[in-house]
C-alpha cells in the first residue's frame, strides 16, 4: 500500500484566515467574488424553481395547476429574480470581481470596502425580494407596468420595487469600482490595447451600470411614491401617461440586457483564444464593438413599446437604431469565427460552452432583428416569439457563457480541476435541454400563442409539452455542475498555476492566488493573447 504524500498547502486567499467573520468582513475581491457566487447560485435556483412551475402549468392547455393570479406571480417572480438577482450580477460580480485585478496586475479593486458594501446591498435587496416571495409575490410582470402596478393590485409591489432598487445600487457601485480600477490600477506596461477583452467587456458593462441603473432607481421610487401617495404621475385618469413609466423603465432595462450579455462576450473571447491557441482576430474591432454595443444600446429602448402607443415617427427611429446595434454584435461573432479559422481547436468543457454561446447567441440576436422590424413586431410582440428570443440570448448566451467562465477559471478560483467527463456531459445535456425548451417557443410565438397566459388553445399543446420536457433536461444539466464543482473542492485533482497554458496575468499567479495576488507588481511587455509566443518551440528564448 503506497503512502500518499500530503501536499503542503501554500498560503492562499482561501486558507489565509478561517471563520465566518473573516468572510463577512473581508475586503479581498476574491472572497467577495465567492460570496457573490454563493448568493447568486441561491437565487438562480429560486428563479429556476418558478420556471419549473410555469412549465408544469403549461403542460396542459387548461389552467389546472395554479390559479390565474398565481400564474401571474410565477412569471413575475421568475423574471425579477433571474434578471436582477442572477443575470445582472452573475459575470461581473463573480468573475469580474475575482479576475479584473488579477488580469490588470493589481492587488485589489480601487475601492475594496465599497466592493463589500456592494455585496451587502445585494443581500439586503435579496432579503426584500425573499420577503416579497414569502408574502405571496408580485403579479405585475417583471416590467411593473403602470397603472396596473400603481393602482390596481394588492400585492407587495413596493417591497419588490425596493428590493430591486437596493440591488440596483449594488450594481452601480460594482460598475463604479470597475471603471476606476481599470483606469487607475493597471500595472506598468498594461496599456489599454494590451488588456484582455474580458476586462474591456466588464468596462463596457460598467459604463452601462453607472449610466442606466440610476434611471431605474428613480423610476421604481416614483412607482412606490405613486402607490403610497396616489400621486398620479402615471395615472391616465389624472392626466398622467403610462408610457412615461415605460420610457423611463426601458431606458434602463434595454441597456440592462447588454449588462447581462457583454461580460459573457468577454468570457467567450478569453476561452476561444485559449482553446484555439491563437490571438483574437481583430482585437481593436472587438474592443470597439464592446463599447459600441454599450453606447448604441442606450438608443433603442422604445423598441419594447412599438405597440404601446408611441408615435409612429418615434417608432421608425427606434427601429432603425435597433438595426444599428446589431452590427457590433455581428462583428464579434465573425471575429470569434475568424479566430478559430486555422487554429488548433480543442474541445474542453469551457470551449464546448463557448461554442454553444456563439451559435445560440447568434440565433437569439438574429431573431431580435425580426422583432426590430415594425411590421413583424406587430404580429409577434407579446407572444412566445419574444420569450424565445430573449431566452436564447439570456440562457443560451449568458448562462452558458457564465458556466463557461466558471469552468475555465475554476482551477484558478478553487485550486482544483473539475472532472472533465462530467463537465462535457453536463455541457451537452444543457445544450440539448436548452434547445428543446426554447426552440418550440419560436414556433409557438409565430403561431400566435401569447405570453403570460396561463391557459392556451389546444393546438399549442404538443410544442408546450416538448418545451417542458426540455426544461426538465435543462434542470438536470444545471444541477450537475453544482454537484461536481462542489465535489471537486474536496476531491478534485489539484491544479497548477496554468492548467490551460493560457495567456493572461491571472494565470501567472498560483492556483488559488494569494491574498494580495502578486508578490511583485508585474511589468507587462507583451500583447494580449500572445499564444504564438507562448506556444513557440522552447529553444527560442521568450521575452517574458
Amino acid at each position, binding site marked *: 500500500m503506497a503512502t500518499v504524500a500530503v501536499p503542503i498547502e501554500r498560503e492562499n486567499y482561501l486558507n489565509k484566515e478561517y471563520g465566518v467573520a473573516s468572510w463577512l468582513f473581508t475586503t479581498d475581491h476574491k472572497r467577495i467574488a465567492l460570496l457573490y457566487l454563493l448568493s447568486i447560485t441561491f437565487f438562480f435556483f429560486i428563479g429556476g424553481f418558478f420556471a419549473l412551475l410555469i412549465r408544469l402549468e403549461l403542460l396542459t392547455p387548461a389552467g389546472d395547476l395554479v390559479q390565474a393570479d398565481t400564474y401571474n406571480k410565477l412569471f413575475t417572480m421568475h423574471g425579477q429574480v433571474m434578471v436582477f438577482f442572477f443575470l445582472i450580477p452573475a459575470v461581473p460580480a463573480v468573475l469580474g470581481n475575482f479576475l479584473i485585478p488579477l488580469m490588470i496586475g493589481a492587488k485589489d479593486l480601487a475601492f475594496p470596502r465599497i466592493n463589500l458594501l456592494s455585496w451587502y446591498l445585494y443581500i439586503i435587496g435579496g432579503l426584500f425580494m425573499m420577503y416579497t416571495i414569502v408574502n405571496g409575490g408580485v403579479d405585475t410582470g417583471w416590467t411593473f407596468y403602470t397603472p396596473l402596478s400603481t393602482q390596481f393590485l394588492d400585492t407587495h409591489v413596493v417591497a419588490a420595487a425596493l428590493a430591486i432598487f437596493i440591488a440596483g445600487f449594488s450594481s452601480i457601485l460594482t460598475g463604479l469600482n470597475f471603471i476606476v480600477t481599470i483606469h487607475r490600477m493597471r500595472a506598468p506596461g498594461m496599456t489599454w490595447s494590451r488588456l484582455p477583452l474580458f476586462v474591456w467587456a466588464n468596462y463596457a458593462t460598467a459604463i452601462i451600470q453607472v449610466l442606466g441603473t440610476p434611471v431605474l432607481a428613480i423610476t421604481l421610487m416614483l412607482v412606490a411614491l405613486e402607490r403610497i401617495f396616489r400621486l398620479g404621475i402615471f395615472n391616465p385618469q389624472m392626466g398622467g401617461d403610462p408610457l412615461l413609466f415605460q420610457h423611463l423603465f426601458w431606458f434602463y432595462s434595454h441597456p440592462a440586457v447588454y449588462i447581462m450579455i457583454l461580460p459573457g462576450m468577454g468570457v467567450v473571447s478569453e476561452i476561444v483564444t485559449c482553446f484555439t491557441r491563437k490571438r483574437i482576430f481583430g482585437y481593436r474591432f472587438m474592443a470597439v464593438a464592446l463599447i459600441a454595443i454599450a453606447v448604441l444600446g442606450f438608443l433603442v429602448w422604445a423598441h419594447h413599446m412599438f405597440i404601446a402607443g408611441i408615435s409612429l415617427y*418615434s417608432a421608425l427611429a*427606434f427601429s432603425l437604431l435597433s438595426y444599428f446595434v446589431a452590427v457590433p454584435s455581428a462583428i464579434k461573432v465573425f471575429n470569434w469565427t475568424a479566430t478559430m479559422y486555422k487554429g488548433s481547436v480543442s474541445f474542453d468543457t469551457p470551449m464546448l460552452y463557448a461554442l454553444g454561446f456563439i451559435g445560440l447567441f447568434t440565433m437569439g440576436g438574429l431573431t431580435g432583428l425580426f422583432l426590430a422590424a415594425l411590421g413583424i413586431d406587430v404580429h409577434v410582440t407579446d407572444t412566445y416569439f419574444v420569450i424565445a428570443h430573449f431566452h436564447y440570448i439570456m440562457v443560451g448566451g449568458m448562462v452558458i457563457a457564465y458556466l463557461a467562465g466558471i469552468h475555465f477559471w475554476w482551477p484558478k478560483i478553487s485550486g482544483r480541476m473539475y472532472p472533465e467527463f462530467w463537465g462535457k456531459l453536463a455541457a451537452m445535456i444543457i445544450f440539448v435541454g436548452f434547445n428543446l425548451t426554447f426552440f418550440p417557443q419560436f414556433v409557438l410565438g409565430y403561431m400566435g400563442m401569447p405570453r403570460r397566459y396561463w391557459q392556451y388553445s389546444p393546438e399549442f399543446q404538443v410544442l408546450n409539452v416538448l418545451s417542458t420536457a426540455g426544461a426538465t433536461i435543462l434542470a438536470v444539466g444545471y444541477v450537475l455542475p453544482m454537484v461536481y464543482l462542489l465535489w471537486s473542492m474536496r476531491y478534485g485533482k489539484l491544479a497548477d498555476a496554468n492548467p490551460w497554458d493560457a495567456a493572461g496575468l491571472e494565470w501567472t499567479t498560483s492556483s488559488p492566488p494569494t491574498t494580495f495576488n502578486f508578490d511583485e507588481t508585474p511589468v507587462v511587455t507583451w500583447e494580449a493573447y500572445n499564444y504564438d509566443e507562448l506556444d513557440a518551440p522552447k529553444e527560442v528564448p521568450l521575452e517574458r
Partner: protein
Amino acid sequence: MSQHIVSAKLYISVWAALICLTVATAAVSYLELGPFNIVLALTIATCKMLLVALFFMGLKYISDRMTIVVIVAGLFWLGILVVLGMSDYVSRAWY
C-alpha cells in the same frame, strides 16, 4: 487631485457673482417675456452651474482629461434620455 490652491478672494468673487445672478434671475421673473422667461432663467442657471463647477468643484484646474470625459458623458446621457424620449411626445401630434 488638485494641488492648485485658489485664493479665498477668487472664491468670494465667484460667490458674489452667483448671488448677483440669483438676484437677476429673480428680478427678471417679474417681466413678461412669454416663452423667453424660461429660456433666460435656464441660461442664468447654466451660468451659475458653470461657476460652481469650474471654480468650486475645481474643474478649471484639473489636468485630468478622464474627469472631463466622465462629466461630458453624464450630461450627454441625460441628453439621450431627454431628446429621444421627448421625440416620442413631440411627434405624437404629427399625424
